[in-house]
């Protein structure tokens, strides 16, 4: 690594400890990203092809004409809005707010259960929710017991089922972020508002939410990025099906690249996902900087 004009004063050896990380990051992260940007513009296939050739923006124009791709974009949007923006975020905030008032035992028990769902390996979480939503599963058993109509959730509403699964699995993160944020609000402020006669909802809306808006921003960013790259959970529960009714972009990318052997096309989709992720990432960094 170059140390620049100050090289004489700041010897190169000082930067030496960075070397292992730099090598790993360049070879295994920056390299693949650059390679991704390259093969997205080729017609590289998995098998039976000696060379690939440069096809320019063909993959991208093909994608935007491909109904299956547009379907995946739409489902990714639904999945992200339902499970991350609405589900994890709101439920996490609600849990954190309730925990401030609840008794210690209830707080501990709820926290433990929600966090347990978060710590479990992705695939295990997938199986548990698969069992929950299956036709013979727990949800229908409960609905039956309540004399409510049952249905085959993974078939009739697959995207809703995987969204719920993602809420189940990811809410703990928001809960922890918001618990920390709410804990930092000085007690005097809420007490003063209470003296002035502001009720619970008004205090939440006019005082608490504005005070934790930065945490809300970073939490929304991180949840969204996390949700954009969910693969294992959906793969285990529905494989993207039935048909392609729960096929979000990561699953679509996988199908194009491997089941249909079109690596170039699959990578073009990956690049789009990466670009969207980068944009969110940049916004997140802006939020962090304004907080510092």
């Amino acid at each position: 690594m170059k140390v620049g004009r100050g090289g004489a004063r700041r010897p190169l050896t000082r930067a030496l400890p960075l070397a292992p990380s730099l090598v790993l990051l360049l070879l295994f992260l920056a390299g693949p990203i650059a390679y991704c940007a390259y093969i997205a513009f080729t017609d590289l296939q998995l098998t039976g092809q000696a060379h690939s050739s440069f096809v320019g923006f063909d993959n991208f124009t093909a994608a935007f004409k491909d109904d299956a791709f547009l379907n995946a974009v739409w489902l990714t949007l639904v999945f992200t809005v339902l499970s991350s923006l609405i589900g994890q975020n709101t439920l996490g905030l609600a849990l954190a707010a309730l925990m401030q008032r609840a008794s210690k035992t209830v707080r501990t028990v709820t926290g433990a259960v929600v966090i347990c769902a978060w710590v479990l390996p992705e695939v295990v979480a997938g199986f548990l929710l698969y069992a929950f939503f299956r036709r013979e599963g727990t949800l229908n058993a409960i609905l039956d017991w309540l004399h409510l109509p049952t249905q085959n959730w993974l078939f009739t509403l697959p995207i809703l089922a995987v969204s719920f699964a993602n809420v189940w699995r990811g809410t703990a993160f928001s809960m922890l972020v918001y618990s920390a944020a709410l804990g930092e609000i000085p007690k005097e402020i809420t007490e003063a508002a209470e003296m002035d006669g502001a009720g619970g909802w008004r205090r939440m809306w006019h005082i608490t939410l504005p005070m934790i808006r930065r945490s809300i921003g970073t939490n929304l960013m991180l949840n969204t990025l996390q949700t954009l790259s969910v693969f294992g959970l959906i793969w285990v529960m529905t494989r993207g099906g039935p048909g392609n009714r729960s096929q979000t972009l990561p699953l679509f990318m996988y199908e194009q690249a491997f089941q249909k052997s079109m690596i170039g096309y699959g990578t073009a989709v990956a690049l789009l996902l990466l670009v969207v992720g980068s944009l969110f990432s940049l916004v997140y960094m802006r939020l962090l900087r304004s907080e510092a």
Partner: protein
Amino acid sequence: MSSPRTVRHRLAADAGLLIVAAAFVLPLAWVVLSALDAHANLQVKIPDGVTLDNFDAVLTPDITFTPLLNSLLLCGGATLLTVASAALAAYPLSRYRSRFNNPFLATVLFATCLPITAIMVPVYALFVQVDLIDTMQGTIFFFAASQLPFAIWLMKNFMDGVPKELEEAAWTDGASSFQSLIRIVLPLMGPGISVVTVFSFVMMWGNFFVPFMLLLTPEQMPASVSINDFFGNRGTVVYGQLAAFSIIYSTPVILLYVLVARRFGGGFALGGAVKG
């Protein structure tokens, strides 16, 4: 002491939390009860008689020991590599001023947030070209690299918390930077290192997509991928065994989480993520 209103509020909050907890606990109850049930199906139900047969059945080299050993090898190796590289990298970033620090840290923070899922197809294509596909070492390297940005970021923040004066004393005694890093800084940031270690390990242990893409031979598969075998190849699914295996596979990360969370409070890994 507490007014009737506070008590009412507390009861309402308790009730609300318990309803959510009940909804969250159902899938977890299924895995625990089914693992102990000889006739497990997809519903939460009390077993007729508690049995450990399911555990007996899965505790074989094929089903449990080899995949878990593979997981340990993969995640242990990658965690070691991550933590060692991150500790080294954090040192100059934390101790010396350079105009490269901020751009580097910004890049690292940016990379922390990239959806790694998106690059798995090109990584696969690249690994085929350089003959790293289906190798443990290739997967370990990629795992380590994918976890490194966050690890460097956390490690640097923890290292900033170690006062520089202690090191300066060692320098006057003639210690090199490397010696002071190993002998003084790292021991003082033990908690930080354990957080980075546990966090990296837990993330990799649960990761499905990376080994699913980069490893091909069944003998090398870690538990996160081999668990799929309960569905595909064996015909009918024995849910009790699947549940038992899920518990065995999940226990290490839950224990690690509890251990670290106890010492550093819940959400231990969030410090670096939501605070700049």
